[in-house]
């Protein structure tokens, strides 16, 4: 559950309604509407879900159910520097989990969370297609290969 409080501006509400209307306000299109809204806002805070609920006439609980079921949807805004650790098979067998643990320890957050100062967020993903570089870490668009737990501090330093 997100504890971030936001106040939607009038144009934000209009944007959500516009997205819903572009899918005919059809409740069957809920997932598409959620995708578009997340694309626009970067995440799906409770307030956004509430507007969607009214527009599509779908109970808020159902929407929250869908948002929490699919790992792609997030209720937490991404940090300025989103850190993704590849947990695909190649990376995993070459120690990605230890790298992930190190990031968690350094940033003091869990996967799916954002640091209090909003600078870093942490996620895991499956295979970025650079298995030769395993284990792979991405920070924003930048890729780091053959990352060892000892490298984590230095990587983070680049962004401080």
């Amino acid at each position, binding site marked *: *559950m*997100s*504890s971030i*409080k936001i106040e939607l501006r009038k144009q934000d509400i209009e944007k959500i309604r516009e997205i819903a209307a572009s899918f005919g306000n059809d409740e069957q299109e809920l997932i598409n509407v959620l995708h578009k809204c997340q694309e626009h806002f970067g995440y799906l805070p*409770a*307030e956004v*879900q*509430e507007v969607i609920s009214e527009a599509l006439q*779908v*109970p*808020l*609980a*159902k*929407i*929250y*159910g869908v948002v*929490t*079921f699919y790992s792609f949807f997030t209720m937490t805004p991404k940090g300025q520097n989103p850190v993704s650790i590849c947990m695909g098979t190649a990376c995993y067998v070459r120690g990605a989990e230890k790298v992930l643990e190190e990031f968690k320890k350094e940033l003091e957050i869990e996967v799916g969370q954002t640091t209090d100062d909003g600078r870093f967020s942490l996620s895991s993903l499956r295979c970025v297609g650079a298995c030769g570089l395993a284990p792979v870490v991405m920070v924003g668009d930048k890729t780091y290969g053959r990352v060892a737990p000892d490298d984590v501090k230095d990587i983070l330093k680049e962004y401080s």
Partner: protein
Amino acid sequence: MDTVKLTIDNKQVEVKAGTTIYQAAKDAGIDIPVLCYMNLHDMGIENKPAGCRICVVEVEGRKNLAPSCSTPCQDGMEVKTNTVRVLNARKTVLEFILSDHPKDCLICPKSGDCELQDLAIKLGIRNIPGEDIAEVSTYRLDTSPSIIRDLDKCIMCRRCETMCNDIQTVGALSAINRGFRAVVAPAFEQNLEHSSCTYCGQCVAVCPTGALTEADHTNEVLRHLANPAKTVVVQTAPAVRAALGEEFSMRPGTLVTGKMVAALRQLGFDYVFDTDFAADLTIMEEGTELLRRLSAHIDGDKNVKLPILTSCCPGWVNFFETYFPDLKDIPSSARSPQQMFGTIAKTYFAGKKNIKREDMVVVSVMPCLAKKYECQREEFSSNGNPDVDLSISTRELAAFIRQANIDFRSLGEESFDNPLGESSGAGVIFGTTGGVIEAAVRTAYEMYTGKTLERVDFEELRGMEGVREASIDFDGLELNIGIAHGLGNARKLLDDIRSGKSKYHAIEIMACPGGCIGGGGQPRHHGKSEILKARASALYLEDRNKAIRKSHENPFIRELYSSFLGRPNSGKAHNLLHTGYFDKKKKIIVKQ
């Protein structure tokens, strides 16, 4: 009609195409255990997620076991429901479910009435492999005025979700998260109190485990009974007498009015009164309001809105306050019988007996969980002292009787006390769908026409169809009546009103399927709709056996008006017996 032929446990059966294996077996007298599955087929209520896999059977030629609840019969199928493979699979499935379930059956409020416990007994579970290493999911306990959610005990059968969304269209509950963390919860895992929940209690009525239970107030009642300074008055709703016997292994539909009164006296209540009396009072107020609005409407007064909607049901009141606040002028302003009783007990009766308001405790026994919330509403209190102090369910009363070691079945028949214990047959049928409007018609007809109503039974208003309608001839005026039970059905009628399409003059709505007889506080029907029908028949029987069948002929109601209230809808009656409604849309809290 297309049929298919198959064998189940070597028994030849022929069923309608599309019938599930489970249903075909049941019709052939073969019992297959189920857990998540629930079907009140003639009420259109079905929960079939095929999630628990307890009902698996072996189908010849199929590699995997099939869930019988959702596998349709096919021609030539050979089904085995009790092979060693099937029995082992069921046991393993149940062991898995139990590995993530608390083992506190001894002190669980559902103990003895729990489908999961029954199944564990039936399948002879004696140990749970891997129990010591299995992770157990835990959740924050959610307490609301009516319903307690203890999700540690949720097995994800999703019956509550079906009731809340598909049947009641309330949408307060949904499955959230996935895998091991999956659970049923309101949006953003808020407490029920901050969700769109109406406290109708239908989730509690169908929960097979102790995950959803009522807020138990029996201990507080006991505390008042033990206090000699308090005069404790009890009122019993109509539907309670038609179901309480089931808790003591009596046949569904057995009327236990006299035994119930005897039990309440033994429990120590100072006065045992009847909510049915207040139901008669409701008819006087609501019927008068109906005629007033109807006459104004006929005279062309555009400010008067029709149809008038009944307002006895607190789940229904919560529903329109949350979902149709724009229509909040339409329901009758008459308070529910529970609340009318409370205010009359603490004014008229307390005055007669010289009992100070704060020394009187009014307890209600209700088939309903929303009544617990209703009696806590601020507008139903005077200087912080509630008109009705505590509301307990039919199930809580049964538990109370057992705790007091009263042998219910061997109790004699006793009568209610007066003056708040006498009722007409019209008050009795309040407990079933169609009953409130039938009671209103009996009185409104005579008020409107000035003639005696000879035919008292309105069969056209009775039945279990979700939405019903009838036209009653009021001496030349055709009164169009609509009836809905279950909030999903109510929503259909409300949508019509909102869009100006409604053709009715009066509409009766009850939140629970079947009306109060199927309330969230009643003994559990375990998916058997014939139990609800038996309860309804019991109420119609009590009505037939009453000497007085019209509310306005109840002598104690007449006395109440002549010596205290004046006339129906008088200023005093308005102050004590009517209320207003609120826009509750805002109560839903989006963020924490």
